[in-house]
């Protein structure tokens, strides 16, 4: 107790020295927190981008064979059919959401009254909008009843709305697709924007019947609930074998039916994350080393500056143990308090910034792992103490005559 009193006294009466020692520690911790937080912000941003662009999705598209199989020639067209959709759905419980895509052959003309434009038409299943992350602005998307009852309904993108309806409300109006009238039941906007918003969605059953589809489909897209890359790769392989058997082609023929998943995106993403983490670690370790060097330097100077004081204290009866204790406790006390201040300020600033800046694609929700921050602070405090131990014990063993001579 009395020891601490003596230390408080010395600290509070040597304000500049206390400030300098404390400042370097507080600054080091503060910078470390800001760095770690910014790193996490970058990481969160990247994670979010990945979430939008590349869910666990697989695209299956019809193609043509590139290898002979069972005596059949190369270049045979392989088309997906409604039955493929039904079979895959029934056979693979990992599939989360699934939709076919059917495209109208030839040129497409979409008009309302006397206005018309060149838009894309996709004929799909209801779950399509869950896969594409479309946001319904008004009305609804294609539903199961539309499919079952072959309803002539359409869901249009915001770009379509602007271009052929202008200020008029499209809901409940009829648009003509290659001369056939479809009732507008919904308006959507896609998160990806641009091209995706120039889209008109129709129920796949209606479209196949109206535009001579004959049960053929162009694409199947699906999302699955595999959590690991390995599971995702395995699912892709299973699908390939299954389709190869059904459509009679070599399972190693990647062109007959193309199956693409987001593995490459995932790889790019995980590389990016790895780099960000490495960056954070390098900077973080650099900051801690700089802090340790700073604290050691200050401790060295502090002890040198106090040689005379140490001499006086020894002449009055201080043992070497007393001297080392005084310097060490002082150093630990100052660096702990300063470290704590740096910690609080850093976390506070992150909170403030995290709340104030708008979310962007690259930076989101900066935060810091408190356990890491506290460990870093303790590391710095310990390093400061060890750094102080050498000069302190050296100073404590200087003969009092020598110490007293110091000016």
């Amino acid at each position, binding site marked *: 107790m009395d020891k601490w009193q003596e230390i408080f006294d010395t600290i509070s*009466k040597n304000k500049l020295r206390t400030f300098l020692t404390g400042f370097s520690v507080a600054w080091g911790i503060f910078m470390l927190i800001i760095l770690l937080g910014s790193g996490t912000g970058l990481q969160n941003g990247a994670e979010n981008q990945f979430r939008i662009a590349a869910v666990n999705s697989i695209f299956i598209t019809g193609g043509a064979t590139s290898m002979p199989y069972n005596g059949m020639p190369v270049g045979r067209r392989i088309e997906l059919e409604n039955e493929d959709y039904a079979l895959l759905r029934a056979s693979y419980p990992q599939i989360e959401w699934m939709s076919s895509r059917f495209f109208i052959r030839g040129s497409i003309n979409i008009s309302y009254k006397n206005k018309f434009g060149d838009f894309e038409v996709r004929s799909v299943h209801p779950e399509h909008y869950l896969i594409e992350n479309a946001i319904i602005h008004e009305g609804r998307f294609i539903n199961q009843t539309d499919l079952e009852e072959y309803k002539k309904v359409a869901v249009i993108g915001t770009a379509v709305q602007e271009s052929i309806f202008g200020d008029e409300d499209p809901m409940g109006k009829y648009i003509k697709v290659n001369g056939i009238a479809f009732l507008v039941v919904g308006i959507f906007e896609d998160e990806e924007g641009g091209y995706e918003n120039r889209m008109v969605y129709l129920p796949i059953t209606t479209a196949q019947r109206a535009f001579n589809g004959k049960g053929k489909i162009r694409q199947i897209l699906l999302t699955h609930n595999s959590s690991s890359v390995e599971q995702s790769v395995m699912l892709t392989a299973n699908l390939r074998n299954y389709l190869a058997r059904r459509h009679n082609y070599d399972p190693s023929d990647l062109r007959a039916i193309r199956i693409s998943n987001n593995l490459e995106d995932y790889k790019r993403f995980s590389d990016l994350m790895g780099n960000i983490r490495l960056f954070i670690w390098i900077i973080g370790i650099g900051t801690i080393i700089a802090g340790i060097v700073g604290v050691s330097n200050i401790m060295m100077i502090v002890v040198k500056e106090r040689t005379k004081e140490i001499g006086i204290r020894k002449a009055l*009866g*201080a043992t070497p143990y*007393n001297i080392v204790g005084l310097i060490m406790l002082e150093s630990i006390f100052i660096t702990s308090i300063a470290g704590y201040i740096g910690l609080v300020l850093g976390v506070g600033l992150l909170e403030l910034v995290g709340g104030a800046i708008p979310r962007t694609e690259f930076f989101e929700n900066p935060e810091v792992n408190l356990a890491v921050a506290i460990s870093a602070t303790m590391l710095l405090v310990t390093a400061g103490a060890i750094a102080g131990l050498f000069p302190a014990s050296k100073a404590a063993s200087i003969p009092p005559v020598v110490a007293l001579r110091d000016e």
Partner: protein
Amino acid sequence: MIKLNAINKSYSIGKNSLHVLKGVNLDIKDGEFVSIMGSSGSGKSTLLNILGILDEYDSGEYYLGGTLIKNLNQSKAAEYRNRFIGFVFQSFNLLSFKNAVENVALPLYYQGIKRKERNRIAMEYLDRVGLTDWAHHMPSELSGGQKQRVAIARALITNPKIILADEPTGALDSVTSQEVMQLFKQVHAKGMTLIVVTHENEIANMTERIIRIKDGVIDTPSEKTNMLTGTEA
């Protein structure tokens, strides 16, 4: 109180060695008030530092109050300095960031005495040197004489066996020097043993005995018959 037998002390400066004390024999009795004189560089401070256990000697024997002071470990040396010896330096050696009471109380801190108690005792000693009103001033706010009185209070507070003063008036004008010497006389009157290094005859003459150091040994001691008590009467 103090007995020195053939004390030798050399300093090594590079390859050369400077033999400063060449077999010093000295006896100082309990309650004596002595001064040490000698030309500059004769080894007065060296001798005093050995007496104060601030420095070690090369050979010989040093008894302080019957205890042999030789090859002490640092903790033991610290304890003896704290319990047996009070120092007064030419340059005061007060801690600049502590006020007068705190400076005076510091030796008691190293005896493990509680803050309140130490400060109470320190106030008593400050009163004895006439500085009650200055107790809470910092050293920078005190005159040289006041600083030296604070240092004397600090030297006295542990009630040591001896007071060692190395040119205590060296930085003071003659009036203030007199004040300091009067204080020493009062302390001596209470039975304390005092050793004062000085090169001023005036100061030396106020002590009971002058020890002269020359060529590394004690010059024929010249007894002064109780001049102190004589002038005080």
